[in-house]
């Protein structure tokens, strides 16, 4: 992992990625931490996942210290800044793990041979935005794919895909942050462990692009999630809407 680096944009996803990679013996050779300490603040809503596989309240700096990681700090939080590109080029990595923070521009992608991203959907038929909700709505499950990024949206070759059935341990309140981070980081660990041994699969089949989900549909998706949870209250919103 010496030439594998993480670009850490402050978020719960970045925290999950970094902690779970390190715990699983996949310590990056270097991390580039973006933004100020003020950007790297936890929300109270970030509760631990059921398996305690990461601690959402542990800051990126704390994790870096705990695992004695080699850090480069870039004050600008912009994932397409020239300072980040320069920092990446200076490290000369063979793989950069992307933790989110925006859409990467071609110039940023060109700063390293490969950028790895975990998309919460099956590819190519679940491209685009908020696919975690669409997965629940359409399949009652979430599939996440690790891929090498390309300039086109979610068009890159796929390293691995994993399916997660809707879990009673997920919640409507936590899906957008802690559960999403847990799902993606689970696939990231798989991908980092095996990416050198596999040839990324070019996407074939008919692509489908999804756009930001409307709040009403999101509500239905989360309602289906609650339906799988016997402890949760189930409200049939449809009955209300169609009455």
């Amino acid at each position, binding site marked *: 992992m010496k030439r594998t680096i993480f670009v850490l944009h402050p978020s719960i996803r970045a925290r999950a990625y970094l902690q779970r990679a390190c715990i699983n013996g996949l310590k990056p050779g270097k991390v580039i931490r973006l933004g100020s300490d003020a950007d790297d603040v936890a929300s109270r809503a970030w509760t631990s996942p059921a398996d305690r596989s990461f601690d959402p309240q542990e800051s990126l700096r704390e994790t870096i210290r705990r695992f004695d990681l080699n850090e480069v700090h870039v004050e600008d939080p912009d994932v397409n800044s020239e300072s980040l590109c320069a920092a990446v080029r200076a490290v000369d990595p063979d793989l950069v793990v992307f933790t989110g923070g925006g859409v990467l521009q071609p110039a940023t992608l060109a700063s390293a041979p490969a950028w790895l991203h975990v998309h919460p959907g099956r590819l190519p038929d679940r491209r685009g935005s908020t696919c975690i909700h669409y997965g629940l709505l359409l399949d009652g499950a979430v599939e996440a794919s690790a891929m090498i990024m390309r300039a086109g949206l979610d068009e890159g070759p796929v390293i691995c895909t994993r399916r997660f059935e809707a879990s009673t341990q997920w919640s409507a309140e936590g899906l957008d942050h802690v559960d999403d981070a847990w799902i993606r980081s689970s696939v990231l660990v798989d991908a980092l462990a095996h990416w050198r041994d596999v040839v990324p699969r070019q996407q074939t089949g008919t692509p489908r692009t999804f756009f930001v989900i409307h709040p*009403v549909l999101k509500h239905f998706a989360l309602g289906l999630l609650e339906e799988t949870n016997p402890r949760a209250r189930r409200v049939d919103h449809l009955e209300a809407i169609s009455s």
Partner: protein
Amino acid sequence: MLDTYLGPTRLETRKPYSFSPYHGDAFVDAHREARAQWIAELQERGATVERFGAVLDPRAPRDDADRRHALDVWLQRTATESLATQPLDAGAWSERIGRAHLDAKLPLIEDREANWSFETIEHWVQRFEAFGCVHTLYDGGGRRVVRDPNRTPVVLRLSFATAWAAVSARDAAQCVILLNALLKMMDLLQAQVLHGGAGLDDDEASMALATLLMERRVLDRVSTGVGRMSEGTAT
């Protein structure tokens, strides 16, 4: 309650959708009530699906007879809440819709035949989602330009076409993609009508009513279990 989403200023950027949190029961209840109220207002002023009548352009692709039939049946049920036969008179509406498209200078839907193809509707849905508003286009230099300042009729026609496509969607994923755009389009229309003072003539009011009823039915399909929808089921 819906002003957060329907306020005319915020709709200009559509950011409310980009950053929408989980709004829960209160939001969905407010959404339902707002739509129900709009339907009631349209019916009060005399809008009817019967008046709208012909949604089936006789020039629609002949090899899609099953989907056309399914839509026909659906509209009859929607209009009457029964299986009673409804007369379909295609002439006036197809003429009106076709001319209106030309008037709006929307080159990609000038072709009347193309109005009825899924591919064209999906293309417009993607434009709507990606650009935020249907009237926003890009000129040769990449700048955003407004091509149709009187956008309400354009959004209404696109909404209707999208609703039609969603009703007769070939599979669950396609249905959900179309419904997602349709909800946003109808939010936009509702904001224009409620807040912007955009008037709808009698025919447009009938088209809006038919679109709203289709939206409600598609919502019903999705919320009762989209994963169990069978391929090609349209009613």
